[in-house]
């Protein structure tokens, strides 16, 4: 079971849940993760496909072919807005 951290507007789109759990087999790619997400949360999946929301794996920006393992830290990152 993978845990996915949510922030900002993505958290809002998931009814203020801070994390989602996804039953994704280990060794799969970010591409598959996004497909799984899209099935349950099409609004979020759409933003990822449009590259408005990025996927991070272990605190680095991931790409569709990045491989995800069971212990990895996954997050969905809406557009950054730090810095005042």
């Amino acid at each position, binding site marked *: 079971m993978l845990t996915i*951290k949510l*922030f*900002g*507007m993505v958290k*809002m789109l998931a009814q203020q849940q801070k994390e989602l759990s996804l039953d994704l087999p280990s060794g799969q790619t970010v591409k598959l993760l996004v497909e799984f997400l899209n099935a349950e949360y099409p609004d979020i999946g759409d933003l990822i496909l449009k590259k*408005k929301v990025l996927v*991070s794996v272990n*605190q680095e920006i991931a790409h569709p072919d990045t491989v995800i393992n069971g212990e990895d*830290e996954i*997050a969905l*990152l*809406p*557009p*950054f*807005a*730090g*810095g*005042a």
Partner: protein
Amino acid sequence: MSVETEGAMLVRIQAEDFSVDEEINRVRARSTRIGGISTFLGIVRDRSKGRDVRLLTFEHYEGMAQKKLREIRERALQDFDVIEVLVLHRFGAIDIGENVVLIVVGAEHRADAFKACEWCIDELKQITPIWKLEETPEGEVWVEEHP
């Protein structure tokens, strides 16, 4: 203070407000070769893209945000002729006119300090996972902005 603790003080994400004098003094204390200190302080404006703003709330990705700020400090130290760099960002609710972000760069010469300081704040906006919720008369808005 140990090198590790002192290094940690130079890159922080915190809810509390900060004193610019104290943060400048941390940088100043690092070397008597420092002749110029360039500082950028970002504060909450009452307007944002034509909207009135009453309050901002900043959210960050704990762990990754600190990691990215550390990367910014290290790259600035490597890529510019500067002596010390401090990067500090607040989270939580922040009122109009209050402090949000602080960059302090100490260098032997001022042109290097200015260049590195401006680079740091530009880079911070690009790569740091921090988000901003604006409270406006029309409701709450998560701001989508790239610099």
